[in-house]
């Protein structure tokens, strides 16, 4: 999954007019070099920044080394110890930079610090994996919540501000500024690169998992799969989820998050009909779901449940499990879904959860009961511009026969929708009233 990486480190350019077979080998070599570099990228940033707390300097020191690797490795082959190669290359580049910028005062002290760090390593130095510490620093409570996911994407995966901004619907310039500010905050505010104390761990871990999930959600929100950047983002988030499971094998919530993302990813293609129309979950053909991905998610959730500590992500993944059981039993387990949403609501107090719970209640006790559950949260001001609330309301009102009210609710939902296929779907529903 070299998605984001390529964008930051401009590597070897075109292959020129070589024979097709050679070109294919070249592409393969390029991909192998990229994959190796990519596996090393976050590890090296984390390794360097863990000591200096200077993420930006670590990234700068490595950027040229990665460009050199992508130019060199496809031909020469990936070295036996790619990380050591990259560190040595970074050290050389940094020494060059230090010579050139001897008079530049502002960055001199950082450069020296990073240079000392790099000088201390040789090709024999084992590069310890500090990525988990780096992720905890990026998702620290002192870092603005909205920038945590972008920061992790940049520091661990090497995404540039342009790609992140475009995926999160923020202008690249603004995203770049936020990332710079956040990195400077890590350094200046003294945010530690360490695993939180046991007493803080659940809350701090949730922030890390939230950030990864936010990245996934941005990627998932491109249902048509036309925006490569967004689709990539979902894959990258799953990659980060796997990384977290491997780094924290005893943490059930990390498994819960990975399971949740896999359940969702498994249904990606079935959200659209052949002609591009929106297909709601209840009408999706289970045969179009990715069965292997669902099986993996089920196994992860089962393993997580053996940890004995439940949490938000395991509960959300369990909701997905109760939905996809339809592939075997023919219907979703609505009673389980209502119970799970109730547990989630106790845990999070989220109005989004409350909406889902209301919809599930309507499946069991009918639309009037569902509407009553929606009414109970109706005075939350955030819902006024929240499309799913109005869409849920419209659907339930339509089923009770309150046509005029349903029509008005559909209109609000349509006005708040970003996705043209969903907008069309809602308009069709509105016309069918």
């Amino acid at each position: 999954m070299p998605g984001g990486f390529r964008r930051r480190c401009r590597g070897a350019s075109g292959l020129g007019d070589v024979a097709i077979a050679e070109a294919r080998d070249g592409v393969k070599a390029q991909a192998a070099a990229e994959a190796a570099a990519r596996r090393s990228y976050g590890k090296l940033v984390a390794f360097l920044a863990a000591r200096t707390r200077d993420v930006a300097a670590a990234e700068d020191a490595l950027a040229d080394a990665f460009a050199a690797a992508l130019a060199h490795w496809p031909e020469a082959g990936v070295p036996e110890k790619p990380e050591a190669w990259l560190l040595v290359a970074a050290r050389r580049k940094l020494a060059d930079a230090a010579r050139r910028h001897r008079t530049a005062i502002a960055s001199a002290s950082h450069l020296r610090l990073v240079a000392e760090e790099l000088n201390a390593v040789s090709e024999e130095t084992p590069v310890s994996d500090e990525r988990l510490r780096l992720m905890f620093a990026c998702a620290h409570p002192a870092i603005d919540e909205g920038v945590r996911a972008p920061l992790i994407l940049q520091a661990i995966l090497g995404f540039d501000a342009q790609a992140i901004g475009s995926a999160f619907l923020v202008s690249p310039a603004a995203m770049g500024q936020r990332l710079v500010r956040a990195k400077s905050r890590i350094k200046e505010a003294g945010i530690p690169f360490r695993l939180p104390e046991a007493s803080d761990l659940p809350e701090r871990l949730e922030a890390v998992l939230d950030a990864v999930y936010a990245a996934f959600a941005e990627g998932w929100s491109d249902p048509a799969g036309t925006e490569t950047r967004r689709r990539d983002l979902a894959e990258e988030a799953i990659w980060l989820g796997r990384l977290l499971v491997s780094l924290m094998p005893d943490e059930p919530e990390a498994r819960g998050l990975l399971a949740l993302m896999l359940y969702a990813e498994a249904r990606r293609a079935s959200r659209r009909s052949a002609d591009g129309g929106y297909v709601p979950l209840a009408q999706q053909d289970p045969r179009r779901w990715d069965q292997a991905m669902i099986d993996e998610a089920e196994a992860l959730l089962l393993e997580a449940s053996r940890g004995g500590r439940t949490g938000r992500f395991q509960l959300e993944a369990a909701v997905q499990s109760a939905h996809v059981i339809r592939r075997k039993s023919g219907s979703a387990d609505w009673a389980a879904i209502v119970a799970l949403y109730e547990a989630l609501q106790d845990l999070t107090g989220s109005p989004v959860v409350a909406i889902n719970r209301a919809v599930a209640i309507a499946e069991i006790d009918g639309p009037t009961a569902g509407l009553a559950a929606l009414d109970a949260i109706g005075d939350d001001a955030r819902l006024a511009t929240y499309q799913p609330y109005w869409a849920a309301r419209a659907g339930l009102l339509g089923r009770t026969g309150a046509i005029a009210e349903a029509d008005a609710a559909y209109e609000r939902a349509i006005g708040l929708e970003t996705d043209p296929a969903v907008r069309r779907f809602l308009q069709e529903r509105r016309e069918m009233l």
Partner: protein
Amino acid sequence: MKYMLLIYGEEAIDAARSKAENEQRMGAYMAYTKAMHEAGILVDGNRLKPTSAGSTVRVASGKSKVLDGPYADTKEQLGGYYMIDVPDLDQAIAWAAKCPGASGGAVEVRPVWEM
């Protein structure tokens, strides 16, 4: 901050739409406008007639010259606008993304120079 959302699209595509497609699009725009209104951020907004109805005026050496048609011949033309008042660019971008014209066309988000 005030932002102008400038909606660009291909007039040829607009002209080729069926009646049903046009009605659907009108409905989407009405719902979008209403959502902005209810969020309390809408300052103004209008649909423009096609560039074939437009004229471009220049004054050079004290003489005004009028040309038929748009200022610039581009693939996509300015077809309408909204003026909104929101706290920051991210919110302006979020509203621009909801605009029916953003799918298939483009919406330029320009901050207004407040005097």
